[in-house]
């Protein structure tokens, strides 16, 4: 890239339920030290705003559920103050909004790398069974539910315990009908319909991070086994693996979807069947995206190159098996003035004295 890339990234939280944005920024800076990065946030307490090496400028955005008008109005204001060329959205709800508005994004001269509507819908949790069947991939019995009565019917079909999942986020294990009702009510209210009931699978969990070329090919893939799982199911540690069966499973899914852009495929080994079962496909990088960058497989940098050139990059070097990550939480420091700026004027530049980088003029 001849000039310093200017990129917007969202999803900067790195707390208990970490988002991918902070890891993406870190990876981009590994490859493009002069990159100018704009953080788009939904909460002034997203910890990645305040981290050293974090975004050069930060703007609060309206929630995607506010609708396209409010979203683009704000995006236009941000672009006027701090222009950028590339946008890497990382939140499922945000991606859902943006794939329907590709023309509006393009009209602003912004470059993204996202799946199209059909790709996105085919990997949605309520349609996962159809996709898995088309690819000859095993999947837990799944029932989409739209209300509590439907959930009770679904639970009778699947039996307890079972997993209840929100359309975009959140999953809870429930063992009784009262727990089911509480979980379904909460997830429907929070993420809309349908909520998803899934038969529980017992066995180790695996994640595959990758980048699809939009023609059915995979540019790069990094597979891990989760070695430490939090009580909320988050991977606090993982180790790289090399299993051709998992690579092939991912290839079949991505080929069928002709997936474009970042993805995360979550699978488990069903111990009763000794075979991989597909749990879900996320349309974005996972929070551990900076880990493969430490092994020489920098997915965000490859994505940025792909967006900048419009070309399919050469296949990435596979991550060797046997490298592990541990999630390591630290405290970051902010000042009340930063919080005030984001809470009132909804944007601020990162003060020069707290970083070695030049602040944005906002």
């Amino acid at each position, binding site marked *: 890239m001849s000039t310093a890339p200017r990129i917007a990234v969202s999803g900067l939280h790195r707390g208990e339920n970490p988002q991918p944005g902070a890891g993406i920024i870190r990876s981009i800076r590994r490859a493009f030290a002069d990159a100018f990065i704009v953080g788009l946030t939904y909460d002034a307490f997203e910890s990645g705003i305040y981290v050293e090496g974090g975004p050069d400028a930060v703007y609060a955005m309206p929630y995607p559920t506010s609708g396209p008008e409010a979203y683009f109005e704000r995006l236009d204001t941000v672009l006027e103050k701090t222009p950028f060329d590339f946008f890497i959205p990382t939140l499922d709800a945000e991606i859902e909004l943006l794939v329907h508005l590709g023309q509006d994004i393009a009209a602003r001269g912004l470059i993204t790398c996202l799946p199209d509507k059909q790709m996105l819908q085919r990997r949605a949790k309520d349609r996962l069974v159809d996709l898995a069947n088309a690819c000859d991939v095993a999947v837990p019995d799944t029932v989409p539910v739209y209300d509590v009565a439907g959930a009770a019917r679904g639970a009778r079909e699947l039996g307890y315990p079972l997993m209840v999942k929100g359309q975009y986020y959140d999953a809870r294990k429930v063992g009784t009908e009262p727990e089911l009702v509480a979980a379904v009510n909460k997830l429907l209210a929070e993420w809309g319909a349908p909520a998803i009931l899934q038969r529980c699978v017992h066995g*180790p969990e*695996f994640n595959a991070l990758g980048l699809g070329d939009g023609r059915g090919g995979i540019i790069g893939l990094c597979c*891990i*086994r989760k*070695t430490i799982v939090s009580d909320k199911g988050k991977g606090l540690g993982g*180790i*790289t*693996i*090399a*299993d*051709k*069966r998992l690579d092939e499973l991912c290839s079949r899914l991505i080929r069928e979807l002709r997936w474009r852009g970042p993805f995360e495929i979550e699978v488990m*080994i069903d111990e009763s069947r*000794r*075979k991989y079962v597909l749990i879900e496909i996320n349309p974005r990088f996972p929070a551990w995206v900076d880990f493969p960058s430490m092994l020489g497989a920098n997915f965000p940098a490859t994505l940025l190159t792909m967006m900048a050139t419009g070309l399919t990059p050469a296949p990435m070097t596979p991550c060797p*098996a*046997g490298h592990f990550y541990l999630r390591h939480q630290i405290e970051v420091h902010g000042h009340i003035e930063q919080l005030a700026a984001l809470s009132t004027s909804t944007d601020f530049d990162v003060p020069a004295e707290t970083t070695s980088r030049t602040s944005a003029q906002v």
Partner: protein
Amino acid sequence: MATPLSDLLLNDRGFTFDPASGETFQLNTTGLRIVRMLQQGLDSDAVLGRMIEDFEVDENTARRDLDDFLSGLKQLGWAG
């Protein structure tokens, strides 16, 4: 779901990593020697011969221990 024995990563103290499953194991000295011999391409009869020689045990004892160990490897999904 089987991992070829040749793919296992071992250190000299028996710490073993299965790169396909991501699982780690601790082999004892005898187990480590057997896996190393199998990785070198020795068949079970050749391994048995080496065990009798190296550990100075009778054939029946060595065969029983080796069969137990090989069946454990099979359960782990490790194939020779």
